[in-house]
């Protein structure tokens, strides 16, 4: 046997490609659609994420921030220097309360100072000033920018001067908006923005004064065309945690809880969709290749009878597979780029965002690689089957005939399939590898890859069991059933029929499509709630008890105020001990000294958590327990805080307020909802427990974003001592980002679902070639077209119903696990949606089968006389 060169193999392979162009076009299209879905979703989602994260960073003005109340030790300063030497940019922000006075009237006023380095601050976002001048120009060593409430209260104007400590400063501008207002301190008093050097010059930073420092970091820019890697951010975060053990370190993804969740959800979902696109593409390839190879059996038998060895034939078909995979892959990448470019055009009106139209080399490589690899991986087992194709096939079909018992047959089959099994193991390994490469969220990738293997096995097993049950059922009843139904059902388990494979593929497809839909729906629902109108965007700090009523009345008279203002009592307190261990004996990280001073509050209702808060551990107290709380104090703690303090329900904490000590038992741990003002306090006690302690009130109210300046002015006039913090601009940024996330994930989900349906439909369509002969025989025997159509419809409907049922069960499981465990969103079983999907799957299967069989039905029965 002469060795077949790869060149000759390729020539024979291409020759065959030429001969049946129609069928091969179908295979190439299947590969292309899969690869296009992957490249399109991947490319666009990475571009979108980059843009989105840039906005998220502006909320913190940095990539990573470390917030501490203790000045840096020399060691720590050296450590910070090292970090900047490594390419990170660092800029300190110092915040403190101080007194300011007008240089003309000498009226004193409590102000909240914020010292920055205008050369670097902010790394992301902009400080909006009035007049609109750059921050660098406004802040010099002798000038400051102030909040408009300061001008109002001290009767000053831009250009006038104020005195801070020992120095005088000219007011250069009014601060309209700071990007990091939400992540800074919510302190009382109008804002005064100045440079670090100016602050040093005032002499206010005497030892012992309460100063909060935030070190803002910006990572070195990533390589052009690449998103900032999450790993680099995490690495810097870890370094800072070791360097500044008492500091609270946050990265840009944690700047706002709603935003963090949205980003996590979107990232997870986008990963899921990429993976789904990958697997569905692979399914498309696998089904197309299977049908294709079935068709080639004759050619293979002929080649073998002409003296070709298995290796040679395999070489030829390997070349052919590679050509098809490559052709489909290239076409798919081109299509994918088209899709990727079309997304922003579709979304332009909704998003006001233009993801850079650069080609993501990574995504293209991945798409091409995935197309080729899956083509190979999924065709290797059937290709290995070539070794078993006996040349006798050329003379006779159906040479395989055996009456052996089932087990012996299975054993023999298993022995004969070792190569296939080994190849299958490689398939799975390859898939896992691809899945981890494709996934932005490692967790989603791991869950998916692990789940995929299990689900595929279970699906195959379940399909086999279903078919077996069907067979048993038919055995018992078959001759009593109407003949079309019987024939339709019998078609499902024809010998050598890929029903089990098709069922598994369909089930897998349904599972993934439905899971994408469910996860998407859950995330979008939650984000719609988050972007609701009534999120407080104006905060009122330091109201006295006798001002509260007046503020409420004033707010209710403002047309721009939406909803009821939430006004929360706050009692200042210090944490003395946890579980009877004094604080200075405890080594808790990231608590710092500031961690020991806490805000206590009580809920408006005696026996239920305040609006928006949800108990996650323990139980809320009853009205009776609340009434007894003066003698037996209880406390509910916000989850994050409870975790940092390492306390659980049943533990005790010792608090001191106004020199009174109180040992409170932790009754519950709750999750705060950042939309409510109550999330400002992390410790909730029953009201009687706090009776008699000095209270200040905090308020939160939603105001039309355009009218906040007006509201501020009205409040200053009537309640000059109340500090008003306006975060409307920041919240608007968050709201926009959230909206964009929902639009994009809905759009991408719709796209993946559509692509999935196309791929599944084409997988079904791929079975049409094996029907031709059968249609012809039936016609010859006198079957009308409606009759044949009925038989096929029953077959497809049953296929769709089984695949839909299995797929939906797993879709719910997958969506539930992903939502609850990985992404921390709510999961709710939706019976109607599931029922609707089930019916839709069955109907779509029938329609796809119909469309595929349409041409087959028109086949002239004369074929029956022509030997195959």
């Amino acid at each position, binding site marked *: 046997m002469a060795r077949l060169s790869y060149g000759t193999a390729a020539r024979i392979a291409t020759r065959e490609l030429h001969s049946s162009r129609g069928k091969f076009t179908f295979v190439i299209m299947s590969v292309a659609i899969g690869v296009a879905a992957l490249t399109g979703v991947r490319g666009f989602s990475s571009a979108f994420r980059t843009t989105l994260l840039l906005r998220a960073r502006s909320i913190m003005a940095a990539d990573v921030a470390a917030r501490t109340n203790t000045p840096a030790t020399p060691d720590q300063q050296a450590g910070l220097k090292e970090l900047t030497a490594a390419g990170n940019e660092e800029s300190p922000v110092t915040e403190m309360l101080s007194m300011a006075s007008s240089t003309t009237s000498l009226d004193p006023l409590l102000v909240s100072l914020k010292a920055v380095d205008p050369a670097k601050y902010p790394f992301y976002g902009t400080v909006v000033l009035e007049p609109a001048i750059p921050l660098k120009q406004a802040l010099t060593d002798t000038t400051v920018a102030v909040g408009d409430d300061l001008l109002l209260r001290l009767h000053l104007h831009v250009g006038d001067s104020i005195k801070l400590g020992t120095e005088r400063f000219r007011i250069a501008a009014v601060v309209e908006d700071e990007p990091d207002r939400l992540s800074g301190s919510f302190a009382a008093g109008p804002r005064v923005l100045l440079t670090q050097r100016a602050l040093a010059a005032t002499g206010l930073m005497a030892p012992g004064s309460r100063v909060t420092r935030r070190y803002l970091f910006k990572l070195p820019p990533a390589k052009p065309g690449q998103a900032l890697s999450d790993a680099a951010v995490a690495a810097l975060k870890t370094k800072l945690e070791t360097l500044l053990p008492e500091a609270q370190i946050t990265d840009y993804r944690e700047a706002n809880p709603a935003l963090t969740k949205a980003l996590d959800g979107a990232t997870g979902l986008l990963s899921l969709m990429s993976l789904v696109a990958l697997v569905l593409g692979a399914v498309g390839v696998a089904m197309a290749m299977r049908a294709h190879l079935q068709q080639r059996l004759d050619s293979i038998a002929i080649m073998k009878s002409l003296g070709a060895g298995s290796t040679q034939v395999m070489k030829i078909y390997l070349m052919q597979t590679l050509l098809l995979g490559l052709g489909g892959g290239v076409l798919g990448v081109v299509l994918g780029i088209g899709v990727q470019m079309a997304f922003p055009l579709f979304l332009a009106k909704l998003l006001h965002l233009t993801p850079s139209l650069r080609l993501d080399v990574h995504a293209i490589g991945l798409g091409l690689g995935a197309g080729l690899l899956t083509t190979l991986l999924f065709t290797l087992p059937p290709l290995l089957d070539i070794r078993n194709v006996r040349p006798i096939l050329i003379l*006779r*079909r*159906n040479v*395989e*005939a*055996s*009456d052996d018992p089932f087990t012996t047959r299975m054993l023999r089959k298993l022995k004969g399939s070792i190569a296939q099994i080994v190849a299958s193991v490689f398939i799975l390994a390859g898939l896992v590898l691809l899945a981890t490469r494709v996934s932005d969220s490692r967790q989603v990738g791991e869950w998916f890859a692990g789940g995929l293997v299990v689900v595929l096995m279970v699906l195959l097993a379940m399909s086999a069991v279903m078919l077996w049950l069907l067979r048993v059922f038919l055995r018992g009843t*078959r*001759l009593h059933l109407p*003949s079309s139904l*019987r*024939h339709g059902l*019998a*078609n499902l*388990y*024809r*010998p*050598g*029929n890929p029903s089990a494979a098709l069922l598994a593929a369909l089930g897998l497809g349904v599972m993934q499509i439905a899971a994408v839909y469910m996860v998407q729906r859950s995330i979008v629902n939650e984000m719609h709630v988050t972007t609701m109108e009534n999120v407080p965007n104006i905060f009122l700090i330091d109201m006295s008890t006798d001002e509260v009523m007046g503020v409420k009345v004033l707010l209710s008279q403002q047309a721009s105020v939406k909803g009821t203002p939430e006004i929360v009592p706050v009692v200042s307190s210090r944490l003395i001990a946890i579980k009877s261990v004094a604080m200075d004996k405890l080594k808790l990280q990231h608590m710092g000294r500031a961690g020991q001073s806490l805000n206590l509050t009580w809920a408006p209702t005696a026996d239920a958590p305040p609006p928006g808060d949800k108990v996650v551990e323990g139980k809320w107290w009853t009205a009776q327990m609340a009434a007894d709380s003066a003698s037996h104090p209880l406390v509910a703690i916000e989850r994050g805080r409870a975790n940092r303090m390492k306390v659980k329900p049943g533990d005790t904490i010792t608090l001191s307020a106004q020199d009174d000590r109180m040992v409170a038992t932790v009754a519950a741990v709750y999750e705060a909802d950042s939309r409510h003002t109550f999330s400002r306090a992390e410790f909730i006690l029953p009201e009687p427990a706090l009776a008699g302690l000095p209270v200040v009130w905090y308020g939160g109210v939603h105001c039309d974003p355009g009218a906040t300046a007006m509201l501020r002015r009205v409040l200053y006039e009537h309640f000059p001592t109340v500090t008003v913090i306006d975060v409307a601009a920041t919240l608007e940024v968050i709201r926009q980002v959230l909206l964009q996330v929902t639009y994009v994930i809905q759009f991408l989900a719709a796209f993946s679902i559509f692509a999935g349906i196309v791929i599944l439909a084409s997988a079904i369509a791929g079975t049409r070639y094996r029907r031709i*002969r*059968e249609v012809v*025989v*039936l*016609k*010859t*025997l*006198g*079957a*009308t*077209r*409606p*009759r044949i159509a009925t038989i096929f419809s029953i077959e497809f409907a049953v296929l769709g119903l089984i695949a839909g049922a299995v797929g939906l069960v797993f879709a719910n499981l997958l969506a539930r696990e992903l939502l609850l465990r990985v992404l921390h969103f709510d999961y709710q079983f939706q019976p109607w949606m599931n029922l609707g999907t089930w019916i839709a799957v069955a109907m779509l299967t029938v329609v796809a089968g119909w469309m595929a069989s349409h041409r087959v039905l028109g086949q*002239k*029965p*004369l074929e*029956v*006389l*022509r*030997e*195959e």
Partner: protein
Amino acid sequence: MGASGSGKSTLLGLLAGLDDPTSGTVALNGTVISNLAEDRLAQLRGRTIGFVFQSYQLIPTLTALENVLLPYELNDDSGGQKAGLERARELLVSVGLSARMDHYPVQLSGGEQQRVALARAFILRPPIVLADEPTGNLDTVNGEHILELLLHLNHVEGTTLVLVTHDPALAAHARRVITLRDGLVVSDVVKAAAPPVSAPSVGL
């Protein structure tokens, strides 16, 4: 009879209405079929013609019994399944497959498959049975056996049997032999009487 490519299959296709003639008309049992709609034609064909093919053409998903029953189900609207079932069983017994009724085609040998096909061709007692090289895929012993069965059934059921072959030995069994070459009828010989039919030997 005729050699490969002489037009045997084309003629058979036209006779059974499996293909449309480019010119002229085809009448089946007195009905002009060349202008019938496809589905009407299928029904007419189902009732009038039984087929036996060289490569059996059984439906792989149906058992032997179901394959035999299929024309009955496709063409009988009376719903009298029982009568059909009985007839199918009888026919299978008469071709010696009483023990293989619930087997699938892949579980049957070529000869057995062709016997199922024979039973299927006769189930509706069609006036005409078309057999296209019915022994072409079989060895001599099986081939002879099938031929015996075919002729026997033909005799018992009283159908018109049209047998297509290139084998003169097979053609020798016919009362009328039409020879084709290059699409043309070159001879049409009618014999006085058919040779005697030996009783079929059932069971191989």
